[in-house]
């Protein structure tokens, strides 16, 4: 009896040797990260360069950034299953995989980041419902479960797994109720993306981060959700493009990319407009009421006013305007530039909302606080990248991730 091949039918994959060589290289980086991770778990957070002024640092930024970038998953789910943009079915599998990687990475980084990892479950068990971090923990874990559920049917479509009758039916039935999971995912994402923004926005002791509230939610709550929905798709497009370059194949029809990019563009434009209003209100009303001028927050050589320009104009309005114009997004150079700028923009926003918050001195007799991550922090932050590459490589090789691949790359 011939065994069913592991690789999906009708598509071409590289040789085992080539694949093993690539995986070997990535695994080496992964092992470096895992070594650093165990070093931190064994010896404690003294392995980092964080200090009492910089209690939140590289890891929290990495967490916020990967979750924002993983936002492509919930937003594409929202557009496909709830709004009914059927074209996006051709990229949603990949968006889900990227989301799965981002969210599992975020959970791993959080597990490394806490001083008492064995007590991590306290955040659920002894939950303080008033804390934004509690909301983050719950929604993050629940949404990770949803992403896993969204990923499973795709895994079950591997030809060898699909031979098992139960798994075949399960994949089919899970697809059948996917809209319910997607809707739950959107609900959970709205709250955890938002509460991640709330993490900084509620800090009324930190005037750089603090924002006015709507009911219990500071403006950053809505801005974070919005920016994740806006820039997450850009990251999905970027990773799809990179996968196409590496595999030297067109995997998703350009019309699908353009549609996704157009929606993302309008989200970015509206987001960055709201962000501009927020920044103006904060600079002209909130901060002065606490005795600060805008320039007090940008008086360090590292954290200067240029950052605000880069975030709002260069990595906000510019990519937004490119993506909403047909000629902009249909030119591949401009499209990719816009996508990269948007990804940098949202990552920079998260950096500023974590690290600059810590750096700003609150007393005139204190100086700006500085911080440079240790190699252990860098290695554990690179770890998810290596892990992500491995998951994407395995998924691409063994699963029918791209529904249009066969049509775009016919095998004679």
């Amino acid at each position, binding site marked *: 009896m011939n065994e069913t091949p592991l690789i999906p039918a009708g598509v071409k994959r590289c040789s085992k040797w080539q694949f093993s060589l690539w995986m070997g290289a990535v695994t080496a980086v992964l092992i470096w990260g895992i070594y650093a991770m165990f070093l931190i778990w064994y010896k404690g957070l003294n392995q980092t360069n964080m200090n009492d002024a910089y209690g939140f640092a590289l890891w929290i930024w990495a967490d916020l950034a990967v979750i924002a970038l993983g936002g492509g998953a919930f937003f594409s789910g929202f557009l496909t299953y709830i709004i009914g943009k059927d074209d996006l079915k051709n990229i949603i599998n990949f968006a889900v995989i990227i989301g799965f990687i981002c969210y599992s990475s975020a959970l791993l980084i959080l597990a490394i980041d806490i001083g008492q990892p064995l007590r991590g479950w306290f955040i*659920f068990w*002894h939950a303080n419902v008033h804390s934004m971090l*509690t909301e983050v923990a719950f929604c993050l874990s*629940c949404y990770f479960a949803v992403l896993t559920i969204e990923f499973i049917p795709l895994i079950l479509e591997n030809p060898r797994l699909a031979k098992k*009758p*139960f798994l075949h*039916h399960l994949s*089919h*039935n899970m697809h059948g109720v996917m809209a319910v*999971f997607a809707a739950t995912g959107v609900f959970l994402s709205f709250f955890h993306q938002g509460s991640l923004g709330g993490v900084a926005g509620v800090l009324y002791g930190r005037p750089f981060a603090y924002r006015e509230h709507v009911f219990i939610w500071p403006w950053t709550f809505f801005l974070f959700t919005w920016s994740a929905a806006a820039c997450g798709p850009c990251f999905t497009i970027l990773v799809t493009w990179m996968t196409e370059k590496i595999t030297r194949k067109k995997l998703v029809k350009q019309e699908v990319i353009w549609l996704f990019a157009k929606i993302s563009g309008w989200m970015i434009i509206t987001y960055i407009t709201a962000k501009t209003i927020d920044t103006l209100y904060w600079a002209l009303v909130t901060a002065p009421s606490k005795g600060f001028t805008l320039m007090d927050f940008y008086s360090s050589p590292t954290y200067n006013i240029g950052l605000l320009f880069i975030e709002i104009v260069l990595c906000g309005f510019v990519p937004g305007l490119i993506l909403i114009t047909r000629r902009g997004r249909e030119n591949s150079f401009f499209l990719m530039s816009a996508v990269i700028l948007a990804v940098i923009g949202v990552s920079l926003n998260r950096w500023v909302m974590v690290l600059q918050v810590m750096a700003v001195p609150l007393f005139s007799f204190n100086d700006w606080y500085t911080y440079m991550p240790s190699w252990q922090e860098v290695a554990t932050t690179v770890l998810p990248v290596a892990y992500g590459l491995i998951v994407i490589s395995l998924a691409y090789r063994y699963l029918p991730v791209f529904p249009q691949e066969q049509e775009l790359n016919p095998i004679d």
Partner: protein
Amino acid sequence: MFPFCFEWAWDMSHMVFMGGLWYALSIIGAGLTFAIVKSIMDMKSHDEKDHGHH
């Protein structure tokens, strides 16, 4: 997280927060249960059909 944890209070914050949480978890649980149970039933009916053909 549960009413038997000592910091639990039957106040508005807990109702809203935990209400949302348990609601989301129930939907996820119900969806999964549905998919699994239906797959088992599908598999059985498929088997019966197969037997019927022979």
